[in-house]
């Protein structure tokens, strides 16, 4: 072995050297390195989990908002259709009212016209009678007493009934 250069003191020196090297590295270099790596691994895992949670939350929020928007849209739609139905109803009401009023106006006009006609006819009767009387008086030049006059008028009128 000595021809190979192996001898006790050198061997021992190498063993001691390695042990010291191991102790130094395992005290000053590896622990901070490992701490850093573990810490970073933990933080990345946490970050990923947090991102996951946030994503889930955002998705839920989005779904909630979408539902809300949908509900509001439906509500608006409902209101619009309600309003339009109401408008339709009001229109119909107004139309009916107008129609009714027109009808009433028309009826009243007809009635008024009828009454006027009757009145005018009655007036005409009276004037015709007076004219006839006047004419007869002129023709007969005869003066009748009041009662005979009325009797004559009555007779005349009943004979000339203008119905």
């Amino acid at each position: 072995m000595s021809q190979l250069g192996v001898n006790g003191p050198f061997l021992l020196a190498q063993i001691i050297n390695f042990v010291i090297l191991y102790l130094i590295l395992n005290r000053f270099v590896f622990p901070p390195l490992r701490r850093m790596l573990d810490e970073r691994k933990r933080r990345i895992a946490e970050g990923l989990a947090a991102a996951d949670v946030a994503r889930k939350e955002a998705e839920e929020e989005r779904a909630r908002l979408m539902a809300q928007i949908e509900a509001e849209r439906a509500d608006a739609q409902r209101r619009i259709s309600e309003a339009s139905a109401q408008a339709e109803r009001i229109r119909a009401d107004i139309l009916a009212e107008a129609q009714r009023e027109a009808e009433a106006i028309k009826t009243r006009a007809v009635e008024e016209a009828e009454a006027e006609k009757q009145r005018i006819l009655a007036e005409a009767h009276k004037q015709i009678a007076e004219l006839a009387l006047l004419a007869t008086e002129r023709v007969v030049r005869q003066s009748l007493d009041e009662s005979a006059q009325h009797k004559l008028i009555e007779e005349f009128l009943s004979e000339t009934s203008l119905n």
Partner: protein
Amino acid sequence: MQRLLQGRNPFILGGILVAIILSVLFVKPAMPTIQLPAEKIPGLSIFGFPVTNTLLATLLADVTLVVLGLLAVRKMRDVPEGLQNLFEWVWEAFDGMITDIAGKDNGRKWMPMFMTVLLFLLIANWWELVPGFDSVGIIEPLEVTYVESGGTVTSGAAKGTFLGLPSIVRPKGAISISLTDEQKQRALEEAEEAEAHGEAYHGPHDPEHASGGYTLLPFFRAAATDLNLPIALALISVGISQVIGIRRLRGKYARRFVAPVYTNNKFIDSLIGVLEFISELAKIVSLSFRLFGNIFAGQVLLFVMAFLLALLLPLPFFGLELFVGFMQAFVFAILTVIYFEQSIHSHAGDEHH
């Protein structure tokens, strides 16, 4: 490639090329020294304990790793940058693998060991590829070892042979040449003459080889090319795996070697127990020699290529050694964890696995 040839770049590149060619032509490279034991650096010792160039390289790797590591965690940022990013990346790259092998809890416990072995060996191996790392050192005149055709050393200057293979692996700074019969005759005469005068004989004078040759004793040499380091790490690795096994399995751990239960046959089981014991020893040998062999071979390869032609030829081999350096560090580290993992499995027969 185009940007490389813009502005003043062509002149700089051309200058470098000319300098390389001139240096290859006119400056003789030092003989690469290839020897197994690490070179002791002359005049340098700690408490009377000689310091080798591989020991210096080990300390250099230590310092590099500790400084880089401390810089990486000095100001930790949430968004990592630079060294912190590099260390985090390396850690993350292997954390999953270790968890796969050893499970979550054990993986967490053994990860520092894995990373220490990996990073230390990686840096120690890659330092070899840094220019000047093992090419700066003390220049020494070449010593010549004379070898008879039969293989025995005749010269007084000889430093001995290694495993009887003097022409393959030389002692540091030595070069061996075979002697012709004529030279041998003259050497014998010279030796007798020197003896007669009571002087030490330093081999036959050979102007061709003895003059002008220099060799280099580098200040640094790849740490894993000194068997002490791989064996030390392998002992730690296998040793800790035994400790883990004993602490986890208590008395049952010994049954792995004494009376494991694999088959219905007690005799075969006890044989397997012996094999288990041998395999624990083999782990030390295989771990250490795999690392040592690969890195040593890589060093020799780079030396030889640079010595043959310093111009461009070593380039692909630097790429290869970059890969080998990482691979060996990784294999050593991952096997350590695998041995840990193996040690906690009971072979007492009361467990299904």
